[in-house]
């Protein structure tokens, strides 16, 4: 019995107990899991599952400007990223309100322009540093400042989400009802909630890039969200499930990266992908229950 406990300790707890860098990676991943995954659920509900990817490109010009103005400063690059991500999202929303273009189409156009602008800015600055590596960190290199950024963003975004939950849900499911409801005039404006929500997405992604890398940030936001939708009917259960899956993927990914010697970011996303695969098979909305539920043909 002692043996088993000891082995379990070595496998699951030991690495975190021994190494501070793993503990920091764990905290950052968990914080991001708790705040980003619920936003992912809202994104899938709004049929904007690919928005995360688009935004992750749209932050580049802002990050580049931040880098040009104050060098490798986390604060400046994060602030620049938030501003340009917000601008891109707001501009896309604006275009879709006042033209016949749908939001996804205008966002596609905006993010491509932003990406081009970002690359041009970086190369005109003359440096040939491989900025992608500098701009986008690794979970294992998270420092105290990065940790503070992720934790701050996670707290702010959770509190905001909690405070405006009802309005956001209403706006997501039934914008017409929201507009006609008895709420105060400013509260009935759907675009207000939409912009607020997009702002949350942007700050989560930026915090994620700086500390965990692009792949990780978008992956941790979307994969658990998509598979959580297979498990539950109710939104609140989906939100909790998404956070739990993201956290589980984070812990498992870091442990596997330690034991199997694989890069940490992709391993975490791989674990989230595995959970998605399992969900596809056995969850209530997945393949197996659907097959079993199929009514027998009456001969």
């Amino acid at each position, binding site marked *: 019995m002692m043996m088993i406990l000891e082995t379990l300790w070595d496998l699951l707890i030991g690495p975190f107990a021994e*190494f501070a860098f793993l503990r920091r990676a764990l905290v950052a991943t968990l914080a991001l899991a708790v705040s980003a995954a619920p936003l992912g659920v809202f994104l899938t509900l709004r049929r904007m599952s690919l928005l995360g990817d688009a935004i992750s490109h749209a932050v580049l010009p802002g990050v580049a400007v931040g880098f040009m103005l104050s060098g490798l400063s986390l604060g400046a690059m994060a602030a620049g990223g938030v501003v340009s991500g917000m601008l891109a999202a707001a501009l896309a929303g604006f275009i879709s309100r006042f033209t016949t273009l749908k939001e996804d189409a205008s966002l596609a156009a905006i993010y491509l322009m932003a990406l081009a602008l970002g690359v041009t800015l970086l190369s005109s600055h003359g440096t*040939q540093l491989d900025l992608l590596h500098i701009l986008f960190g690794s979970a294992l290199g998270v420092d105290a400042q990065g940790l503070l950024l992720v934790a701050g963003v996670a707290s702010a975004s959770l509190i905001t989400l909690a405070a405006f939950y009802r309005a956001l849900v209403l706006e997501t499911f039934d914008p017409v009802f929201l507009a006609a409801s008895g709420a105060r005039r400013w509260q009935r404006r759907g675009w207000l909630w939409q912009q607020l929500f997009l702002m949350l997405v942007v700050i989560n992604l930026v915090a994620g890039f700086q500390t965990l890398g692009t792949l990780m940030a978008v992956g941790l936001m979307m994969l658990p969200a998509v598979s959580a939708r297979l498990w539950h009917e109710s939104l609140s259960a989906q939100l909790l499930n998404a956070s739990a899956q993201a956290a589980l993927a984070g812990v498992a990914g870091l442990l596997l990266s330690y034991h199997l010697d694989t*890069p*940490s970011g992709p391993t975490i996303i791989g674990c989230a992908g595995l959970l998605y695969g399992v969900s596809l098979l056995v969850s209530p909305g997945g393949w197996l229950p659907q097959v079993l539920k199929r009514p027998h043909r009456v001969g």
Partner: protein
Amino acid sequence: MKRRTTLTCFALSALAASSLLPSLATATEPLPVVASFSILADLVQVVGGDRVKVSTLVGPDADAHAFEPKPADAKAILGAKLFVINGLAFEPWAQKLAKSANYQGQTLLASQGIQPRHMPPEPGHTHGHAETDPHGWQDPRNVILYVKNIAKSLSSLDPEGASSYQKNSETYIQELNALDQFAKDQLAAIPQPKRQVITSHDAFGYFAARYQIRFLAPQGINADTEPSAKEVAQLIRQIQRDKIRAVFVENMSNPKLLAQITKDTGVTLGPKLYVDALSSPSEPGATYLKMMRHNVTQLVAGMKLN
């Protein structure tokens, strides 16, 4: 492939020589030379002196591995009579650029004739094909060959300046020998078991071989790849076990991960080393000789703490 390149070089240089010599004989303006990166530019400038006008494609503090040529670079090459590159696959884009710009002048592989080293196969990775280590200039004796190659090329393009190139390169070779001696003297104070250094990029192969230093630059700690938690953990254990205090980053990489590792192990991160590129003029690695002396001094200071 390589043979064809060499043949093309010969053919091109013959062509260039036949068509350019008459015009050069009367020209008094400096010979336009393009160097692929800052260290070569420094060497060409030293050898060529006033008789050459050197421009650099990849400037100070910039990474020649990740360089993407712009149209202006093609234009710079087109205006040159000599294109100096390191070779050994350090600038894979260089030949392509010269070809697409339809460059007709001479191309010099400055590393010609040095004994190439192979990158150590990465531990834990099974695809163990050894790559050639391109960072030949990290051994001053190699740079003597670089300088001779450059002097020879310049002399063939500008025979009138041959004696000047000869004189410049001889003076510089003396300085290179002095540098080599300086490094040996400095390192003599460090006993063999203490000669261990951790860096962010394994570019010190030639330097390490010349001065018997063990450089630990674990895969994944350099900027190119995502690290695994195991590698970082092993590095931390090694730092603690061997009591390594000499931890350095180079001028072009992201120091974040290494900075965190040093923090966790209670080591102070040493000052920047200059490896693949010179520093800007205001910093201590503005010429090849300064860069090497800076690196040696800092490394020795670091290893003394081991």
